[in-house]
């Protein structure tokens, strides 16, 4: 067992998969000699050379679009978008090409590729180094969307993503890159998509979250425990497909749901979860499903962390649900 951070887990997953399967290539801005601006590809260029670790020109359309072509032709590209905020110049390649090539060709072609991107706030990055654009991907049929929140998950899920035959958007909560350390098995393992992790069991309230705010949710749950409230914390881990069963089972048990995410609220993935809970569990609800989300403003530089669901904000919402 080695102790590692999320960024180290990502690097290990890439390294193991590149060693295992020579079709796996990495491409993006500064992924070569520089090893990526977060060092997630550090050492890979030296180990696998410039044909498998490709420094691209500064164009996200080139990165994602080329990945589509490589994948269609038989490689397993892992594209890095330097910050999730910069996916938009390549967004058409993602929605019009990657997401639709299997479908539009009647299954003749496929694009087994991963688009990795550091996402989320909390690093004093202002609007263009802090956004959480997962809703745009989740709303695009044909894409799978994965958001790990721990080193163990990052490793196992990234390996699954690379082996998956569909395009996977893999979002790495950058504020957790180095803040969480965890023991991870030395043996190789993968983790399935579509299975949430129950981070904490509880009977009074369910918190459904993913990515960065998993941390604040767990902290809030600890606070609640102090006042005798047992919160169950579910980390979705994959958004498409998401683990409805685990969520509904939990909410059926607790009767109270908070959906916690740092993306803006309006028409968000959090709204999807809340709407589904309401649609399928109305009679078991003791309180309305409450969304605790980022605000519907661009992500501000000042204040930085207050934009995202804070422990206090989660507790305020929990109070509402409990006192309903």
């Amino acid at each position, binding site marked *: 067992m080695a102790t590692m951070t999320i960024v180290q887990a990502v690097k290990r997953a890439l390294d193991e998969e590149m060693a295992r399967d020579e079709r796996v*290539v990495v491409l993006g801005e500064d992924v070569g000699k520089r090893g990526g601006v977060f060092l997630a590809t550090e050492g890979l260029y030296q180990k696998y050379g410039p*044909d*498998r670790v*490709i420094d*691209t*020109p500064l*164009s996200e*359309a*080139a990165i*994602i*679009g*080329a*990945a*589509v*072509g*490589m*994948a*269609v*032709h*038989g*490689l397993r*590209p892992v594209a890095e978008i330097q910050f999730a905020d910069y996916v938009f*110049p390549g967004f*058409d*390649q993602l929605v*019009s*090409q990657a997401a*639709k*090539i*299997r*479908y*539009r*060709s*009647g*299954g*003749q*072609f*496929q694009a087994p590729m991963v688009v990795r991107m550091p996402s989320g706030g909390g690093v004093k990055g202002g609007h263009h180094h802090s956004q959480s654009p997962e809703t745009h991907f989740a709303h695009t*049929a*044909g894409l*799978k969307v994965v958001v790990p929140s721990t080193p163990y998950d990052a490793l196992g899920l990234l390996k699954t993503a690379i082996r*998956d*035959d*569909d395009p996977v958007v893999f979002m790495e909560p950058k504020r957790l890159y180095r803040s969480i350390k965890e023991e991870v098995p030395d043996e190789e393992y993968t983790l399935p998509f*579509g299975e949430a992790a129950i981070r904490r069991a509880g009977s009074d309230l369910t918190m459904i979250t993913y990515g960065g705010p998993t941390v604040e949710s767990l902290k809030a749950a600890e606070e609640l425990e102090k006042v005798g409230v047992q919160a169950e914390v579910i980390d979705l881990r994959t958004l*498409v*497909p998401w683990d*409805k069963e685990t969520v509904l089972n939990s909410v059926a048990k607790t009767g109270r749901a908070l959906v916690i995410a740092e993306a803006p609220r309006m028409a968000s993935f959090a709204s999807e979860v809340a709407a589904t809970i309401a649609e399928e569990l109305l009679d078991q609800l003791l309180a309305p499903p409450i969304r605790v989300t980022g605000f519907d403003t661009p992500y501000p530089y000042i204040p930085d962390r207050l934009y995202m669901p804070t422990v206090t904000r989660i507790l305020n919402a929990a109070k509402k649900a409990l006192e309903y």
Partner: protein
Amino acid sequence: MFQPFTEEPIRLIDEKGNWIGDFELDLSEDALLTLYRNMVAGRLLDERYIVLLRTGKTSFVAPAAGHEAAQVGMAAAIRPGFDWVFPYYRDKTLLLSLGYPAEQLFAQMAGTVLDPNKGRQMPEHPGHKDLNVFTVASPIASHVVPAVGAALSMKFQGTGQVVLTTFGDGATSEGDWHAGLNFAGVQGAPIVFAAENNRYAISVDFSKQSASARIADKAHAYGMPGYVVDGMDVLASYYVMREAVSRAREGLGPALVELLVYRYGPHSSADDDSVYRPKEEVEAWKKKDPITRFERFLEKRKLWTPEFGEQVRDEERKKLEAAEEKALSAQAVPPEWMFDDVYAERPWHLEEQKRILLEEL
């Protein structure tokens, strides 16, 4: 060796059908006649599509008459089923020349189960795995970047393959077009970019599309050669493409080839071209018809007579009629196929949604 960046388009047959190349023609009579037959077949296919539209068997056509020489020339320059093609919606003659079965093209037009793409897209959006023909997507220029990616895969894996990607003059304005050519240039990818410049993007004429005199000039920006070719001349189209393809195959990197063509019809069956271009312009270009020009050439070599021309047309017409018959009598794509191929396996939410649809059928 052709020169890039010439003032005048490269031409090998003059309007009267004379060979004006400064090298020896090295194509067999069979090869020449195949070029001819492919152009004729393409023209006929185009005409059939319009009949399909009139009779309500399809909902959309993108006329390609006028593009035949360029498309047939390109097709002959690559190795079908080995090299890859990333085409756009006006490439029916290219695809037919590559051996794309006509009944599958018709099936795509009509949305029957014979379409290997399962009727997922509107007409004029074919694609074929066995032929390495990437299924056409509507967003202009969006296929150019995947084309570069495939070429990079070929290069990194040393497969010896080459990519051909085509697009119209309008496509050159899209950001993705730039991103693709730039990346290909940097990496020396084995790819040929072929612009079918028919001077209009729907109604927008080339002077409003670009301030460079030629599309070929844009190759300067990407450190690759840019050739401008008379795309109404099938031999010029073929030879320049052949050279560009072999350069790419030999590892000398990408090239941009601009083929000057004209579309005789409107942009599409939804378009009325009379509001943006004068009839006389169309008529003037019809006088430069690529098929007639090549007939004159063949005639001079005693390879063509009017009767022979009629015979080829008849033969090709019959083949197309049989293909059309087969394609159209096949079953329409069933609605519930809608839920297949979104992902390799159907996730729970699509299972649920499929049930919702089945409930109402």
